């Protein structure tokens, strides 16, 4: 009798232990999944959210790029763009790369069809020509501080405006919204040149660019 009871007791303890262990495993499983979810969520912030195509703007005749939207009201944007500079009167066409920071503080909704107007977009972009004839700092053959600027890296400043169209949810096949924009820009070398000369007029050192932004999500 006592022997049977002990067998039963052992069996019961084993069962309890088994279920307990299952519960522990289950708890581990959900923790793992949560972590992975968080991990993927963190990395998913790095997925570019839009594609931009820009015409002119001293960053290539055409440039194509992608970027990230962030900020409380999505007012900040960082673009990474690749541009093509045609040959014109030089020896060959060139590629260039641009890192661009945009600030668009206001988004004014127009009507009920999804249109909005962004009265100001402004920012700065750094452009680099991918070509051996250009240097970041002067090559070693020159005496120190011979040329005090870089032919490769240009700092550009811009202001512009945008109109945007939010695609209604029912009609969203690919993109969430579209925006058309124009920008007026100049670079540090033009500004330095204009600063000491009356001869140079805004039409000499300011340039226009046009672009489209397709926001995927």
């Amino acid at each position: 009798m006592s022997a049977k009871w002990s067998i039963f007791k052992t069996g019961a303890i084993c069962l309890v232990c088994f279920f307990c262990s299952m519960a522990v495993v289950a708890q581990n499983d959900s923790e793992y999944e949560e972590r992975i979810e968080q991990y993927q969520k963190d990395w998913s912030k790095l997925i570019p959210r839009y594609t931009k195509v820009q015409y002119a703007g001293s960053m290539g005749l055409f440039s194509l790029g992608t970027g990230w939207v962030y900020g409380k009201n999505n007012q900040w944007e960082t673009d990474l763009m690749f541009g093509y500079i045609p040959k014109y009167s030089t020896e060959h066409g060139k590629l260039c790369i641009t890192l661009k920071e945009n600030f668009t503080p206001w988004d004014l909704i127009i009507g009920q069809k999804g249109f909005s107007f962004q009265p100001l977009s402004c920012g700065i972009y750094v452009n680099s020509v991918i070509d051996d004839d250009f240097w970041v700092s002067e090559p070693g053959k020159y005496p120190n501080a011979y040329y005090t600027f870089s032919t490769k890296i240009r700092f550009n400043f811009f202001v512009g405006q945008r109109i945007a169209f939010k695609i209604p949810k029912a009609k969203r096949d690919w993109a969430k919204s579209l925006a058309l924009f124009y920008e007026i820009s100049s670079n540090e070398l033009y500004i330095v040149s204009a600063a000491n000369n009356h001869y140079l007029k805004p039409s000499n050192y300011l340039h226009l660019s046009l672009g489209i932004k397709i926001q995927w999500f």
Partner: protein
Amino acid sequence: MQERLCMRNLCIFFLSAFILCSCEELFEAHPYDGKITGETGMNAKNIARIVNNCAGKQQIRFIMMGDTQRWYDETEDFVSHINSRNDIDFVIHGGDISDFGLTKEMLWQRNILNKLKVPYVVLLGNHDCLATGEQVFRKVFGDENFAFVAGNIRFVCLNTNSLEYDYSHPVPDFDFIDEQLTAQATEEEKTIVVMHSPPFSDQFDNNIAPFFQEEIIKFSNLQFCLNAHEHRLEVKDRFKDGIIYYGSANIEKRNYLLFTITPNGYEREVVYF
């Protein structure tokens, strides 16, 4: 109402964009893109005028200046000053027409110099060689080495900015100098050698400076040499052989060198404007 507001905003948007379209050169691919608008081949066109105007003349009066980089206002003042005189045959710009080698710098300076009533030529300066600068310079102005005969004076204009080049590109180009020596038909012809960077400057290939001098003194009746680059007025007998190098100041100093070559010699004057 909302629709109308939408239309109005759209109109403002496109209007402001298109008002800008009235500017020349509205779109820019890149500041070094080499997109040239307007006249090209300035040196060749002006040399034709110089040769024509000076043919048969016994007395030639010309101006040496240079280093106009980023001094647009001063260059404009220089042009209007020269236009107010009527005793000049032509102007030699000793190079550094641009500061950064940007395409538009060359075009802006060309536009200013094109207002000169008298013909002008531009030499290649070291700043003009930067990035795509030289490629644009060649199109807008002309070759790095060139020569012309005004009256009975041969002007040999040389690229001497050796620091900007590798050994694969000869600077100064002795083949060009030899060609000019051979081209010199008469012993009566006078010669003036013009360059941007003078011997013993930071740009010149100083290893061959004595050989360079040995070559150029072979020119018949070498009057003197002219250079820019140093941004100051200079009178230097650089090789202690009696051949004087006259250096022009940068245009910011608001002066230029005026030379009058007569059958018996030459006169030099520094003119402030």
